[in-house]
């Protein structure tokens, strides 16, 4: 499936990079400006039970440069996490997002921090796009106090409530009903916000997803279900898991849109469209056609069920960062060197954050017993040897 896609998008992208709008100023400033720019998405949107949005996406140099920087940062962060894991500084589970960055940055560009995002365990980059810092990421991965969950959550449990990022969930599919619940609360608060509940092609077959979708459609909830289809549920290819891998159609009576998830601008356009739709008409499904370079997690090489050719093929033809780089260069928004400098900068940021995270201490032993409850009522809790270790819950 992915392979046939590759050829198609490759030939199209080269012709699309010629600027369609000539409202360009030859700024050399790397931060860019807001002068409008229109770019066509790599492929048109495919829709189900709705009218697809236009392929022409409004953007500007500043946004494109921000996309580049943010995605480069995320890429570097995930690769660094790989090294830390192999150095045994990160333990347990570590699910990396490199390859899928465009979904996180494109979505963020279309919404506000009052809209909610909830996802599963491949959450490091989503956390960052919601405003989380690199220090919080690396410290949490290494189980340190400076982590976003104070070291008590780990890779799969990042949260940032003040920017409406609700995690970070380890049970496949559970985040979808939770996301619909967030949408319910948003509708109740009448503040014209929406929830994006992300899930993978593996989770797309979960019963609870359809239960939540049914209720969302019945109650007109502003819920946007986003299937990040990277074509593999752990080691199982989509065609082996789903009788119908047209995930954007699986909502039946719920409209859907299929989106090139490697094209940040297409993602942005789709999310903008989805938000408007959800506020007026209730739930909608977005299927992001994307790809992960790493295996399912750090304990999966990712090459026993995929060929190395496939992986490198996607990297060459559809990489989201390269797409934006080509766009920036072809529109003369920055030079190659300037972009390389950005990459060097983010690399340094990542290295600095890791160094800082390594300095952060592990949690105090007393933290074993904190946050069990929001209101502990002064009850007792126990360690492994309850005659040795007891605590009163605050």
């Amino acid at each position: 499936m992915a392979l046939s896609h590759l050829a198609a998008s490759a030939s199209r992208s080269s012709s699309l990079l010629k600027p369609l709008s000539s409202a360009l100023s030859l700024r050399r400033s790397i931060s860019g400006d807001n002068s409008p720019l229109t770019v066509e998405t790599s492929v048109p949107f495919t829709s189900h039970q709705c009218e697809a949005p236009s392929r022409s996406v409004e953007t500007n140099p500043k946004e494109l440069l921000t996309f580049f920087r943010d995605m480069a940062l995320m890429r570097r962060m995930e690769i660094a996490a790989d090294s830390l894991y192999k150095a045994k500084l990160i333990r347990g589970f570590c699910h990396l997002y490199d390859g899928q960055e465009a979904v996180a940055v494109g979505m963020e560009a279309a919404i506000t921090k009052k809209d909610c995002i909830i996802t599963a365990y491949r959450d490091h980059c989503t956390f960052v796009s919601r405003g989380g810092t690199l220090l919080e990421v690396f410290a949490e991965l290494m189980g340190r106090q400076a982590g976003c969950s104070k070291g008590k959550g780990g890779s799969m449990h990042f949260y940032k409530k003040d920017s409406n990022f609700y995690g970070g969930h380890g049970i496949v599919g559970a985040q979808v009903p939770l996301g619909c619940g967030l949408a319910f609360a948003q509708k109740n608060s009448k503040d014209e916000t929406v929830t994006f509940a992300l899930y993978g092609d593996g989770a797309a077959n979960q019963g609870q997803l359809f239960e939540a979708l049914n209720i969302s459609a019945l109650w007109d909830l502003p819920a946007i279900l986003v299937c990040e289809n990277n074509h593999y549920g752990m080691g199982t290819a989509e065609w082996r898991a789903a009788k119908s891998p047209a995930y954007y159609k699986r909502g039946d009576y719920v409209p859907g849109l299929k989106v090139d998830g490697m094209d940040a601008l297409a993602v942005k356009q789709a999310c903008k469209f989805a938000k408007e739709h959800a506020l007026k008409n209730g739930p909608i499904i977005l299927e992001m056609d994307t790809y992960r370079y790493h295996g399912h997690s750090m304990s999966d090489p990712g090459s026993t069920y995929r060929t190395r050719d496939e992986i490198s093929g996607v990297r060459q033809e559809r990489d989201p960062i390269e797409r934006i780089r080509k766009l920036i260069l072809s529109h003369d928004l920055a030079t190659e060197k300037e972009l390389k400098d950005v990459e060097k900068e983010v690399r340094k940021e990542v290295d600095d954050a890791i160094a800082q995270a390594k300095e952060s201490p592990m949690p105090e032993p007393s933290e074993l017993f904190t946050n069990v409850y929001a209101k502990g009522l002064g009850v007792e809790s126990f360690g492994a040897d309850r005659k040795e270790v007891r605590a009163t819950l605050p």
Partner: protein
Amino acid sequence: MLAIARQRMLGQSFKKILPAVSVLRSYSSAAKQITVREALNSALDEEMSADPKVFLMGEEVGEYQGAYKITKGLLEKYGPERVLDTPITEAGFTGIGVGAAYYGLKPVVEFMTFNFSMQAIDHIINSAAKSNYMSAGQISVPIVFRGPNGAAAGVGAQHSQCYAAWYASCPGLKVLSPYNSEDARGLLKAAIRDPDPVVFLENELLYGESFPVSDEVLDSSFCLPIGKAKIEREGKDVTITAFSKMVGYALKAAEMLEKDGIYAEVINLRSIRPLDRSTINTSVRKTNRLITVEEGFPQHGVGAEICASVVEESFSYLDAPVERIAGADVPMPYAANLERMAVPQVEDIVRAAKRACYRSVPLAATA
């Protein structure tokens, strides 16, 4: 006859527990009686009135007025945005309830019986109970899961299980189980006000039973503390712990034991998690003997935890091994005689108490 006995016991226990409630002892008018159903309904009504964030969801809670009529009248009063009829999809609607709680609303999710909560148990445990801990306090979950628990009458194996032990083993949850109308009101109000996920285990057979309640209990600000057991009847010879319907059985057993000169102290646990180990141990240190009573399966049950707690904290005070009375270690049968054997009866509690007192033959009452 029962009402008089209850009044006497209430008088005794109120004397010790709540000085303010001695209003009951100086009554000029008879104490009001309300059913557990009315108690729960009024608690929901008052909490919904006091806090617009509280809302109800579950199967048949709205237009049907509640499968057991617990939510009667609430749809009419609060409207369809606060009383929501759900499809028969526990995993989906429980997840939605938990998500709404993440955002800051206060859902009260009804399971038609807790047997159906097993379809949603991942959300109760992994999405609700553990979130505050995993997020180091960022995501608290002010949700209540309520509904009938344990055996009803003749409903068979799939509809009769008691879930107290399962839920109470999980850190991050609070688990409450009321017995009478005062418990029902006070504990449900406490559960709704509590910022943590609370599993509220009711009993279908108690819904229609009436109990006297004082004016204080009927006041809309009434609330019982979570984590505190109640001594329903004081005694000196043997401690009997129970919760929900079994409290009534334990009280009947205590009456029968009194005729044989055995004065049992009956503890109504009210809170399964946190368990009031302090009250239980203080009582056992006084009586030196313990019977635990529960409806649920015996292995890894509530009684097992209470026994362990007492052995750990008060071993040298025990004059006899701890006795456990629990449901039979079999799936619930349908035939009436077998069902009767599968659930504790008053005689079982009496027999166990006598064993603990090393008296299997009734003796004349001693001073």
